[in-house]
C-alpha cells in the first residue's frame, strides 16, 4: 500500500523566532525527496519539528501520514505511525544499549543482534559499536551510521535524515546512500533527505528536489535541479523576507 506524507503550511518557532514560515511538501512511500538550502533556511527545523522535539514550537499548519494528523501525536506515536528521524547529531544516552532501545521501540527481538550486525556492515560500521551505549564515545560519522542501523531495523514508512552526510568520508557516504536507496524498494520506504551536498545524490537518485529559503520551499524539480544548484548556488532562489 502506498503511503503519503503531506506537509502543509507548516510554521515552526525556535527560541522565539519563526523559522519555518509555511512549508509545503508532499511525498509517497518509495520516493526519495531531497531538501537543499542555505544555512539557516529551516531545513533542520523541519526535521526536528516533524518528530516532536521539545525545543520546537509548531505555530500552524499540518503534517499528515495517510490522512492522520501527526502534529497532535506524541513523539512515540509519530514514530510508531511510521515517521522516524535520523539526526545530524544524535545524543548520547549513557547506560542504554542499542539493542535494548530497539526492542523497546518495538523491533522484533528474534535474531535482532544478527540483523543489527548485518545492518552495520551495510553502512560499514564496526559491529562492536553495537554493544556500546547508544552513541557514547562514537565519532560523528559512527553516530550517523548507527542511526542508519536503527532505521534498517525499525523500517519506518518514512525516514527523515538530517544532514546524514556531513562528517562521512566518501566511501561511507556511498554505503549510506546505497543503504537508503535499497530501503526504498526493500520496504517501500519514503526517504526525505536534508543535505548540503550533491555527492549523496550520486547513489541515491532523488524523485524530487526541493530548494528551501527563508523557511519555505521556493523551487521544486527533478534530479536536474541539483545541477542548477551546483552551477548557480542558492542565490537565484533566495527570496526576500516578507
Amino acid at each position: 500500500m502506498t503511503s503519503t506524507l503531506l506537509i502543509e503550511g507548516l510554521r515552526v518557532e525556535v527560541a522565539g523566532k519563526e523559522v519555518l514560515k509555511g512549508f509545503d511538501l508532499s511525498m509517497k512511500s518509495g520516493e526519495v525527496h531531497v531538501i537543499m538550502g542555505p544555512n539557516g533556511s529551516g531545513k533542520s527545523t523541519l526535521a526536528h519539528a516533524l518528530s516532536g522535539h521539545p525545543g520546537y514550537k509548531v505555530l500552524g499548519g499540518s503534517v499528515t501520514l495517510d490522512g492522520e494528523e501527526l502534529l497532535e501525536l506524541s513523539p512515540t506515536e509519530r514514530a510508531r505511525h511510521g515517521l522516524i528521524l535520523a539526526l545530524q547529531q544524535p545524543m548520547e544516552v549513557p547506560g542504554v544499549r542499542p539493542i535494548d532501545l530497539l526492542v523497546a521501540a518495538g523491533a522484533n527481538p528474534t535474531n535482532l543482534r544478527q540483523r543489527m550486525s548485518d545492518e552495520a556492515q551495510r553502512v560499514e560500521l564496526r559491529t562492536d559499536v553495537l554493544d556500546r551505549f547508544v552513541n557514547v564515545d562514537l565519532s560523528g560519522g559512527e553516530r550517523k551510521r548507527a542511526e542508519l542501523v536503527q532505521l534498517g531495523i525499525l523500517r519506518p514508512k518514512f525516514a527523515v535524515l538530517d544532514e546524514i552526510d556531513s562528517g562521512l568520508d566518501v566511501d561511507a557516504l556511498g554505503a549510506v546512500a546505497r543503504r537508503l536507496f535499497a530501503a526504498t524498494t526493500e520496504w517501500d520506504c519514503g526517504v526525505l533527505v536534508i543535505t548540503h551536498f550533491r555527492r549523496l545524490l550520486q547513489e541515491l537518485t532523488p524523485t524530487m528536489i526541493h530548494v528551501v529559503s527563508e523557511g519555505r520551499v521556493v523551487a521544486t524539480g527533478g534530479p536536474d535541479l541539483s545541477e542548477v544548484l551546483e552551477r548557480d548556488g542558492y542565490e537565484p532562489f533566495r527570496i526576500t523576507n516578507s
Partner: protein
Amino acid sequence: MKIFADSALSFISERPDTHVRERAWSSFSSLGLPTPTDEVWRYAPLSDLDVDQFSVSSSPKIAADSPFAAQLVETSGYVVRIVDGFLTSSDDSLPGVKVSSVHDSSSLSGTSDLEHYESDSFALLNVALAPATTVVEIAEGTTVDRPIVILYSANGSSSFSRTHIRLGRSSSATIVEYFEGGHDALVVPLSEYEVADNASLQLVTYQRLDTTAWHVARTTGLLRRDARLRQSVLGMGAHYDRSRNDAEFLDVGGENELRTTFLGTGNQVHDFRTHQFHKAARTRSTLLSKGAVADESRSVYTGLIEIEKGAKRTDARQTNHNLLLSAHAHADSVPNLDIRENDVMCAHASSVGPLDELQRWYLESRGVTPKDAERLMIQGFFYEMLATLPGELADLVESDVTSALAKLQVVAS
C-alpha cells in the same frame, strides 16, 4: 541499649583480641549512636533505630545460597563466602590469590583501627564486633584472570564484616562484592582496599539487602604509586542505606574512578558519602554519582574532594545527578571542596531533577514509550556502573537490576 549491649559484651568476651574489642566498645559507648543533630547523620532516620531489636550472635547462621547468589557462583567460578562476618568458605584454586581470616586490628592506612575510626560510632562497633578480618591478598605481579566473587550474607540479627583486600605490586584483579539478606538486621561492613604500586583493582559492590535492613557501610581505598582503583557501588536494598566510600592517594600517579548509584523506593533512605583525599602529586580522581528516588524515598549525596598542599597537578572531578521519580521523593546533593594547593584541576557539578529531556525525546522519537524510556534510562544508571565487569557477570547483575526495576511503578512526568 541493654539487650544489644549484653549480647555484644558476651560476644566480645568469647573472641580473641578481647582487649582491643573492649576498647572499641568503650569508645563506641562513650561516643554513643549518632543523633539527628550530628551534621553527618542529619539525613538518617535515626528515630527509627532501636539497637535493642538487634543482638550479636557468636556463630554464623548458615543458609543456602539465594538463586541469584547461586548464579553468581556459577558464573564466576571463584567464590569467597562471608556469613554474618564469618569467613565460611573460600578456595585456593586461583594462583596468586590467598584468602584468610585473621585477628588483626590494624588499619591498612598504618594506624590502628581504634585510632583510624575513633569518631565513627558504627565503624567502632565493627571493630568491636566483627568476628575477624577476612583478608584477600593478590600476590605481586599476579593478574587474576577470573573475577573473584565475595558473597556477604547477613542471616543473623546483626552482621559485622571486616574485609581487607590487598593487591601486591603490579597485580591486577576484578572483585565483585554482593550483599544479601539483612531482614530486620543491622549490617555494618567495614572494608579497606590497598592497591600497591602499579597495581589495578576493579571492584563492584552490589547491595541487595532486604528493605528492612539498616546498612551502614564504609570503605577506604588506599592508593600507592601509579595504582588504579575503579570502584562501582550499587545500592538497591536496605531501609537505611549508608555507603561511605573514601579514597586516599598516598603516593604519586594514582588514579581512582568511583561510580555510585542507588535506587530509592518505598520509604528508603540512601545516604552516600565520598571523600577523595589527594595527598600526593599527579593523582587523579573521577567520581560519578547517579541515583533515582521514587515513591517517598529520600537520598543524599555528600562528597568531599580534599587536596593537600603539595599535591600538585591533581585532577579531581565530581559529578552528581539525582533523579526525582515522584513528587513525594526528595534528593539532596552536597558537594564540598577543600583545596590547599593552587596547581590543580578541580571540577564539580550536581543536579536534582527529572530525566534529561533531550535523551528522553531521542528514545521516544524511535518509538519507545515514555514509560519505557524512563525505565531504560534509570536502568542505564546501573548498567553504567557495571562497565568494569566481564560480560557474563555484567549480564547477570544487569538482569537482576532489570527485574528489580520492573517491579517499580514509575509514572512518567
